[in-house]
């Protein structure tokens, strides 16, 4: 299904808004362009504010009398330098990358097999299993973190990266499986039948036919899972204690915020740099993102 909507929308592209010529320009300015401008301004302003604060010297930061807060007179890299050289920030970045990549790969492998089994092997109880996977997707981390903390502690994983690598799949596997099920469904069954007749076994069908055809689906699931792991907070906050094992969101919030003085410049620089990897990834794969987001909801 996830490839189908985009195919439909592309088909309609030349046709959509076919009656807009009936509307006069001034009317369109009020009904379309003005609201759109307000939406874009509100949605993007926090990012601008984050970026401009990150490069403001401290004396301009809180002096709204002599400097316009919307601009910076003498941009500085002091905050970024402080962040990179005098805090554990580079280590947090490395941790986040490591944990996100490992959790994503683990989840993708488990999900490919599960989705193929549910969607194509159609073993007994496949429908029920599919429904169970969907229900698992609806279980929020907020009700799991306390029992998981007890488990993580009893397993001796407390304050290790493995605690996060093993628990992130709880929300990644249901999501990826659900997405890939929809993707596998769009591959014609006849291709597999041909291969079966030619003597291929299930493993060969999966690796030589289904997987090569579902590379876009795998990319969608992969980058989405990576982003979800990158953004995860409550498990990382609960299971990690020492500074050197923290991820970026937890590190920025718990280590850069000191009780008395807020280092707003460094905080904003930390938020900005921590957001960049996912934003860059997103900018390369916008279509995959949109299709995985809408695909997950549509089925």
């Amino acid at each position, binding site marked *: 299904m996830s490839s189908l*909507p985009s195919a439909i*929308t592309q088909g*309609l592209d030349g046709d*959509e808004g*076919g*009656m807009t010529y009936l509307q006069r320009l001034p009317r369109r300015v009020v009904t*379309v362009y003005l609201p*759109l401008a307000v939406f*874009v301004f509100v*949605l993007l302003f*926090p*990012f601008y*504010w*984050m970026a401009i604060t990150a490069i403001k010297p401290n004396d301009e*930061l*809180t002096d*709204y009398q002599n400097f316009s807060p919307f601009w910076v007179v003498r941009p500085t890299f002091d905050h970024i330098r402080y962040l990179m050289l005098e805090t554990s920030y580079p280590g947090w970045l490395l941790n986040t990358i490591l944990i996100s990549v490992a959790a994503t790969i683990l989840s993708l492998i488990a*999900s490919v*097999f*599960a989705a193929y*089994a549910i969607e194509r*092997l159609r*073993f*007994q109880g496949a429908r029920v299993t599919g429904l169970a996977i969907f229900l698992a997707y*609806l279980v*929020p981390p*907020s*009700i*799991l973190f*306390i*029992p998981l903390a*007890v*488990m993580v502690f009893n397993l001796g994983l407390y304050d290790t990266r493995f605690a996060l690598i093993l628990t992130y799949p*709880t929300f990644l*596997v*249901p999501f990826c499986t659900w997405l890939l099920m929809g993707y596998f469904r769009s591959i014609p069954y006849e291709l597999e039948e*041909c*291969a079966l007749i*030619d003597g*291929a076994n*299930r493993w060969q069908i999966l690796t030589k*036919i289904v997987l090569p055809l579902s590379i876009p689906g795998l990319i969608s699931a992969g980058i989405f899972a990576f982003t979800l792991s*990158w*953004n995860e*907070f*409550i498990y990382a906050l*609960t299971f990690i204690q020492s500074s050197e094992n923290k991820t*970026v*969101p937890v590190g920025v*919030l718990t280590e850069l915020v000191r009780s008395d003085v807020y280092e*707003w410049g460094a905080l904003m620089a930390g938020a*900005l740099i*921590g957001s960049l990897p*996912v*934003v860059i990834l*997103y*900018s390369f794969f*916008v279509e995959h993102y949109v299709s995985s987001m*809408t695909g997950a*909801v549509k089925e």
Partner: protein
Amino acid sequence: MTDVTSPALRHDDSSLLRSLHNSRGALGFLFMLPAAILLLLFLTYPLGLGVWLGFTDERIGRSGVFIGLENYAYLWDDNVFWLAVFNTLLYTSVASVLKFGLGLWLALILNERLPFKAFFRAIVLLPWVVPTVLSAIAFWWIFDAQFSIISWALERIGLIDTPINFLGDPTNARASVIAANVWRGIPFVAITLLAGLQTISPSLYEAATLDGATPWQRFRFVTFPLLTPIIAIVMTFSVLFTFTDFQLIYVLTRGGPVNATHLMATLSFQRGISGGNLGEGAAIAVAMIPFLMAAILFSYFGLQRRRWQQGGSD
């Protein structure tokens, strides 16, 4: 693809393996194994363990004993817990209504013929892509009591005289966290509804226009009915994620001032992890389940309706 049709594929497995390959049940079981182990171990089991912990007095560093409904009895008489329930319902309902209204509006705008449409669609999704905690930190700075940019701008226009105490006053704090949540939630609603809008054939609008339908009638009698199934699903997800929200509150207010913004999830964390009362924290988390079940049932009936609308086929 060529090597599939060629006879190059060998088939020299042992007979045991071959019978495995031909048995759907056995192979299905094998393929399900990795996902099943991960989910049973780290999702199903903790879910059960959480319910069990709710009936014990377990603390950090000390295993607990069964104490029946004592945790729930304590919470029943706890004003802070009921305040958190009220806050969660208020937060969820207000934020969801705003997200739905604004998201649908944005989706309708983006569905118009626009220059740089793909660019706008990509940009609009940004708040949703960026880690919530990091954008919440930006909002923390925007909502600063002294140096808030909003206060500064309003003072310059002349609407207010003193800076707004965004996060220090109970009412303001509630409005502020809801605003930040709505900011982050609009893109998800807008982009998914836009995908739904794009599947509606323009010829339906043309036909309605020829029949003399006004823009409002076209929306009410063409767009809205066709969009209902996807609205039901999107809003279920939105309600679910808003109801169990933790990160935004934890960054912006930690539940303050005077517990005015404590949600059930943040209260559960405060009592369970920070306070060390794992049993009580688990009981608060379990108390969220009935609400979540209601949301899931709502989603189920949303799906049912879709099947019915499509004439029983899906």
